């Protein structure tokens, strides 16, 4: 049984409550807003091919990267017209969900 120990404080509606905090609460991820210019990976996989080149002008819908994930070759396409500013990954890289792949300006 949990004893009344390890008390910390938690604020709800301006009131400070004494309570134990859970591991999940303490380890909750801090929110980091996404950079609208960056293309982020949505699925874990391996970068199979980088189609775009830095400095290249690209159109909306154009293929930027081919990602091998879940036994499929997935095309990562450009969400808008622009110019490739920087590519953060290289072919063969293992990437996880949320990894920034490249930046468009």
């Amino acid at each position, binding site marked *: *049984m*949990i*004893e*009344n120990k390890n*008390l910390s404080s*938690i604020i*709800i*509606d*301006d*009131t*400070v*409550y*004494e*309570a*134990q*905090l*859970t*591991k*999940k*609460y303490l380890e*909750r*991820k801090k*929110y980091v807003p996404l950079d609208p210019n960056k293309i982020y990976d949505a699925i*874990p*996989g391996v970068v199979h091919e980088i189609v775009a080149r830095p400095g290249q002008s690209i159109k909306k819908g154009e293929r930027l990267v081919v990602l091998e*994930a879940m036994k499929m070759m997935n095309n990562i396409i450009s969400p808008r017209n622009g110019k490739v500013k920087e590519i953060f990954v290289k072919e063969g890289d*293992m990437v*996880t969900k949320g990894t920034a792949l490249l930046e468009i300006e």
Partner: protein
Amino acid sequence: MSLKNKILEFFNKKAKVTTLGGQKAIDKQYAMGKMTARDRIKELLDPDSFHEYDLFVVHHSKDFDMEKKELHADGVITGTGTIAGKPVCIFAQDFTVAGGSLGLMHARKITKVMDHAIKFGIPLIGINDSGGARIQEGVNSLAGYGEIFYRNTIASGVIPQISVILGPCAGGAVYSPALTDFVFVVDKISKMFITGPEVIKTVLGEEISMEDLGGARVQTEITGNAHFFAHTELECFDQIRNLMSYIPSNNNVKADHTAVKQPKSVVAIDKIIPAEPSKPYDMRHIIKAIFDDSNFFEIQENWAANIVIGFARLNGETVGIVGNQPLVLAGVLDVDSSDKAARFIRYCDAYSIPLVTLVDLPGYLPGIDQEHAGVIRHGAKILYSYSEATVPKVTVILRKAYGGGYIAMCSRHLGADFVFAWPTAEIAVMGPEGAANIIFRSEIANSPNPELTRKLKVQEYSEKFANPYVAAANGHIDAVINPGETRDYLIHVLKNSQNKTELRPTKKHGIPPF
């Protein structure tokens, strides 16, 4: 063949197939710290109560030289027996035979005993210890899983289904336990996951042990997939027998009545609660002070501990308890605690177990992580389950009942039959601090001494609204009661509720915010 020889032949055949996977495999099983499937059934059920079926089933697989392989009982022991004299159906996968792998006949043995359980209104206990699909049987093995899942779903809310994970239970296989009512795990023995460490390493390059990915602690502390944690298999079987004593055998009968025992010590329950609403206490002490023999059979003790759920007895009758836990995260509702309570409420409703709700919470947990995890959708589950439930519903507001939390915790408005409040109750739209800061914002800001004004306004709000009498004046609660009278009131109203009928519009089923 003479009669004598026929009987002799039977004994020889039986002796052969009851040897599990042979001594070498059995020794290996023991070396892993695990009992065999037959040991487990023997330890769990009443002595000599087990009757086995389908012992002579053989697999039909012909590919990959499988036709030459003899798999005793096809790797799963099935039958019926009793626990505390009451019938149960049981299957136990046998890891010593082809790693307990599931082929079509193995699955058909399981589905046969499941069909029996459903037809006869008997609880089903499944002991899982299997490497997964029997790859050599290909799609037939998948068919087997599907046929089990289908029956798990059909049986849900009709007969209690208990899953005991005593070995690996991975991939598709783990969806059967997920569909059942209660999942039991044992330290260092249970391993549950959809994709194992190998796949994760290949795809993500991340290394993790089976234990850290889906061991007993992970499933009872982080995911909430399992309900009961035990250190040994024997402790786990005790927990199962204990659970069985609280629940009815099917949805048409009531749980057993037991001899009435008063709470152990005459605890002055009003002494447990600190006067100041921001100070914590352990809700389970209150529960023990109110219910029979001070017994509380807690479920999912180590997951989403900001809410406590479990069974207790009141005057000999099983009741389901849902209580906020001020000791952990001030007892807030959040994604996990809503999931935890909602499913339990539906369990109690399905099996005609009256619900007692003990309220002390400041509201929902604020946070970007909570909002992004869908606290709207998850929080709605608790509203849905309380509103949907037609079993007797009694609510006691001990201290704080603020805002959305007040509504969610089985308020009169969600159909509670009786709502009581202690004199310490604060039933209000929000806590005095927050409310005063909003209502008197400009007064506080424009005051020559804002801090003093704020303090006075908080006090003013507190005196006017942080009590049970505003709610009582509006009939939202039925009675303000002395904490010491709680047990008497609960016994009284549950006696009154014995023949409760509450009709709902005819429908196929609702669409809860899963």
